[in-house]
C-alpha cells in the first residue's frame, strides 16, 4: 500500500500550486506513459484538467500533463503541491510525499518495474527515506 489515492479536483480557493518535480520525457519507457493514460483516462480527458492525488500525510498534489507536437500525449508531467497560497512549503513533507507518489507510480506501471527495485535503488544511493525502509543493500 502506498497511501496514495486519486481524488476529484479539490477546491483551490486560498491555495497555490507549488511546482515540485517535472518530467520532460514521460514516455522514455512507454509503460510509464501508458500508466498515466490509464490511471487518469487521458485519452478522453486530454489537457482539460490536471490529475489530483492525496497522500498519507494529507497533502494533495496536482499532476499537470504536458503535450508536445509530434509526440504521444502526454509527453511530460509536472507535479505541483497544493498548499496554502501564502505559506512556505515543508520540504521534508514534500520529499516524503514524492517518494510515496513514486511508489504509487511504480506499483501502477507494474511488470518488470517493482516497488522493491525502487526501494533498493533508493537505498543504493542512500536516499534518506529509502534508508528507513527494510532492505538488503549494504554497499
Amino acid at each position: 500500500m502506498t497511501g496514495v489515492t486519486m481524488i476529484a479536483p479539490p477546491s483551490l480557493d486560498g491555495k497555490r500550486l507549488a511546482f515540485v518535480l517535472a518530467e520532460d520525457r514521460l514516455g522514455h519507457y512507454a509503460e510509464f506513459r501508458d500508466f498515466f493514460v490509464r490511471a487518469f483516462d487521458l485519452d478522453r480527458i486530454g489537457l482539460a484538467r490536471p490529475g489530483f492525488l492525496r497522500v498519507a500525510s494529507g497533502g494533495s498534489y496536482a499532476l499537470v500533463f504536458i503535450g508536445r507536437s509530434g509526440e504521444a500525449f502526454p509527453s511530460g508531467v509536472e507535479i505541483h503541491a497544493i498548499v496554502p497560497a501564502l505559506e512556505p512549503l515543508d520540504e521534508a513533507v514534500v520529499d516524503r510525499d514524492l517518494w510515496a507518489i513514486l511508489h504509487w507510480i511504480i506499483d501502477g506501471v507494474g511488470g518488470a518495474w517493482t516497488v522493491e527495485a525502487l526501494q533498493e535503488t533508493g537505498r543504493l544511493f542512500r536516499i534518506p527515506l529509502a534508508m528507513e525502509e527494510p532492505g538488503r543493500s549494504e554497499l
Partner: protein
Amino acid sequence: MQTVTLPDGIHQQWPFAPRFARVNGWRMHYVDEGAGDPVVLLHGNPTWGFLYRDFVAPLTQAGHRVIIPDMIGFGLSEKPTREHYHSLDGHIANLAALLRGLNLDRITLVSHDWGGPTGLGFALGNPGGMRALVLMSTWSWPLPPAEFHTRIFPWRMMHAPLVGPYLLGRHNALAGRGVYLSVVDRARFAERAMAAYESVLSDPATRLLTWVWPRWIPLDDTARALDRFAWLERELRACTLPALLVWGREDDVFNPAIFATRFKHLLPQAEGPHLVTGRHFLQEDSGPEIAAHIVDFLRRVP
C-alpha cells in the same frame, strides 16, 4: 548567470585558470595549459574536467598543450534546464565549436564515458585535424548495450520517468554516491574528490544531464541516436589513427573483456588495452599511471 563555488580542498587540486567559450549559444568552461601538440581530455556523466586533474602536469611537462572542456550541462559550464536541449549530435557540435574556435591541429582526443561518442563524433568527422585517439571505459556503436545498462536495478530505475528527476535531481544521487560506487578506493575518493563532483551540481535544476545522458544509451533498435552510433561504428572501422586503449580491471559498467575487445576489433592498430586499477571512473584510482601511458604512447606517435 549560474555560478559555482568550489570547496577549498578542491580548488587546491584544480588550480587552473578558467576559460570560457561560446558554443552554440551556451557558455562552455575549459582549461588550456602548456604548449605543443594539443591533447583534449573529455569527461562523461556526471563528471567534469576535475576528473583529469592528475593528467595536466605530466602531459604539459612532456611538451603537450592540455585542453579540458566541461561538457555543456556539467562542471563549470552553463547548464540548460530543459531535457530537449541535449542530444548526442548537439554535444558533438558543441565540441566542434570549441575546438574549431581554438584553431587546433594534430589533436589527440582522450575520451571517457560520453566523452567517447561525443569525442569520436568530432574526431571521425574531422580526421584531418587529428593525431591520435585514447579511449577509456566507453563505447561507440549502436548495440548491444552493456549488460549493466539493461538492468532495471539500479540503472534503468535510476533514470526512469520521474524517478530520475527525484533521485538524481532532488537528491544528486549520481554525482556523489554514483561515482563513489564506481571507484576502487572509495575512502580516498570520498576524502579528496567527491565534493568536486557534488559541488558543481549544487541545485536540482543543474543536475538534468545526469539522468538525460542515460536515456541516450541505445537499449534496442528504437533508440534515438541509433543512426549516429551506427555511423560512429562504420567510421571507426575505417579509422587508421593511432589509438591507445586503457581500461579499469574492475570496470563493471563497460566490461573490458567486451568493450575494450570490441574497440580492438574496430581499431586493430590500437595499443592495449592497458589494464589499470579502476572501475568505471578509472582516472580516480589510476590517474598518474594512465597519464604516463598517454605520454609514452604519444612519444611514439608521429
